[in-house]
């Protein structure tokens, strides 16, 4: 899952990025509205965390312009908790709202819920045959036995599982699993897929030659 964080306070941006990466997300950062809008328009993020008070282009404006083109789920973040602001945020097209100072665990929970909603999922657990993925604890079990996966392996599996039945191209997988700061080597993906098959069975993830991967 790839997230965009738009926040002008550098230290907060740094912390959010760090915390989200540690949760297994690929994270892009933008420090102002213009940069944020550019990034949000040029890539299909799984969710955007958006501050309201931003230089150059404020959160409202950015959201409004983005909504003319995309339905990316947006979580608004602001230091203002006025009732009007909340209503305005939700009316403008924000999907959720969080007031600063926020609790990191709440932010992460809301983000998970937001992504789940956008993919029409009702539970934080995804079952694929005998494998169960817990997106909250970021752990996997096979026949009830825990299987140890690396963060990257889990992320690949999660992305394929939530888009179950779709063929996901290598490019798409790359784009959603690695952020702008990751050094991407194409063969790394093969290594992760190989490892997943070894841990959870060779037929879980199918390879469509020339097209990509798929969980059926």
């Amino acid at each position, binding site marked *: 899952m790839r997230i965009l964080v738009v926040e002008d306070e550098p230290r907060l941006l740094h912390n959010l990025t760090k915390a989200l990466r540690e949760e297994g997300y690929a994270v892009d950062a933008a420090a102002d509205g213009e940069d944020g809008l550019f990034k949000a328009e040029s890539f299909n993020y799984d969710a955007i965390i958006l501050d309201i008070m931003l230089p150059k282009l404020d959160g409202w404006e950015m959201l409004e312009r983005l909504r003319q083109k995309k339905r990316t789920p947006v979580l608004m973040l602001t230091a203002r908790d006025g009732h009007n602001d909340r209503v305005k945020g939700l009316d403008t097209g924000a999907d959720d709202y969080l007031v*600063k100072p926020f609790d*990191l665990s709440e932010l992460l929970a809301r983000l998970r819920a937001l992504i789940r909603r956008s993919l029409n999922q009702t539970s934080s657990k995804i079952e694929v045959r005998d494998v169960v993925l817990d997106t909250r604890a970021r752990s996997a079990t096979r026949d009830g036995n825990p299987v140890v996966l690396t963060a990257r392996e889990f992320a690949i599996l999660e992305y394929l599982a939530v888009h179950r039945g779709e063929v996901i191209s290598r490019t798409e997988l790359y784009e959603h699993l690695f952020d702008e700061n990751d050094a991407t080597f194409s063969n790394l993906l093969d290594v992760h897929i190989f490892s997943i098959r070894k841990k959870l069975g060779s037929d879980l993830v199918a390879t469509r030659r020339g097209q990509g991967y798929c969980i059926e």
Partner: protein
Amino acid sequence: MIFRSIKWRLLLWMAFFLSLILAGLGIALCHIHLVDQLNQFDDRLLGRVATLSSSLYTPPPAEMDNHQPGGNPGLTVVNDSSATGDLSGAPTNRISPPADKPAPGTLQLPPDIVRLFGTQNTNSYYYVLWPRGESDPFKQSANTPDGVTHPHTAEKDTGTHIRVRRMFREAYHVTEHGDCVLVGRTATEEYDEATRFARLVFLGAAGVLGLILAGAWGLLVRALRPLEKISAAALKIASGDLSQRINIPDTDSELGRLAAVLNSTFARLETSFSQQRQFTSDASHELRTPISVLISEAQTTLARERSPDDYREALGASLDAAQKMRRLTESLLELARLDAGQEMLRRENANLATIVQDSVKFVRALAAEARVQIHCDLVDVEIYCDAGRIAQVVTNLLTNAINYNYEDGEIRISTRREGSTAVLIVADKGQGIALGDLPRVFERFFSADESRSAGNSGLGLSICKAIVEAHGGSIAVTSIIQRGSTFTVRLPV
């Protein structure tokens, strides 16, 4: 209580006084009318009594076969019994009194005169005739009511008089011979007429009163409508809707002027409330940002085991955030104290030039780091001020001038005296302020660069302004974008 309202009170008072006036006028009118009626009545009585008395002694018409004692003025009375009711034939029946009876004169009543009087009709004129010295009537008409007595006037009191007896008015004439002739009639008709007239007057007055009161009510409602608008607006404002205004088109009336005054008061209230709200909102926003940093820093760091370097970095960032909060709360407290009043100024005589020199020394390191030159052009001016506070203003202006300057830029700071005013000018050739932002630079939490990441709370110039104004001075700014800004502080000596 509806009758406690101004409208009702005015109306009731008006009704009260109007009724008094109308009652007075009505009574006067009725009185005049009655007197007039009675006068006319009396005139008719007098006319008849005059006719009667003038024909008392005239000799009988020649063609009449009456007995006339020669030379002796015997009493001769024309019997009017024929006249009672029978006006057609008018045959006269003469009664001749005994010739030996001493007669004061030849009393006689010509039938054509007698015919003028009523018959049995009690509402018509009646007459009574008394010879001199007699109290029993010698002659009277058939319709004469009971109890008509001789007026018993003194002998000498000849002439015509009017007397009123219950409903009857009577005119009597005492002739020079002492005979008395009386003509009377009941005035019931006149009194009835007067009653009718009084009733009309009463109805008319009531109608006029009603019309006037209705008109007055309409006027009152119109005149007091603004008051109701005012109280409605005031009610809404009291319940928190400060955007309410009173809409009264007629601004020249008393209430219109009141409404205008109230409107401007409401406007000031609204502005000050919204400024207050804005200030609180800004202050909480400014405080929340460092708190967010602090919390997210701690939570992220504590989420798992970290290296000592990570901990050090997190603690450093936390310290920065805490420092930022401290600076902000100090600024807020300072503003609050300055807002509260002047008692905290510790004023003494100080030289503005010295204060500026000290401040320049204070920011020299910062200026050197930013490679900005500070040129001083200082004239000694003694001012009575809180030197520490003024130094704070100078330092703040200099810091801004340095931070918003270009590399290798320059700042000119000067002091001089203009009459009883000390003038301090800080001019830089830095980034300047956009024209649209210029009026707002002294506003609390206003910052031309929106992000405020540069550790700029947006309170510095507000504090400068508050300090200068607490000294009774003023601060102003002119600026051209990308050319630089000039701040001018004026302080009373």
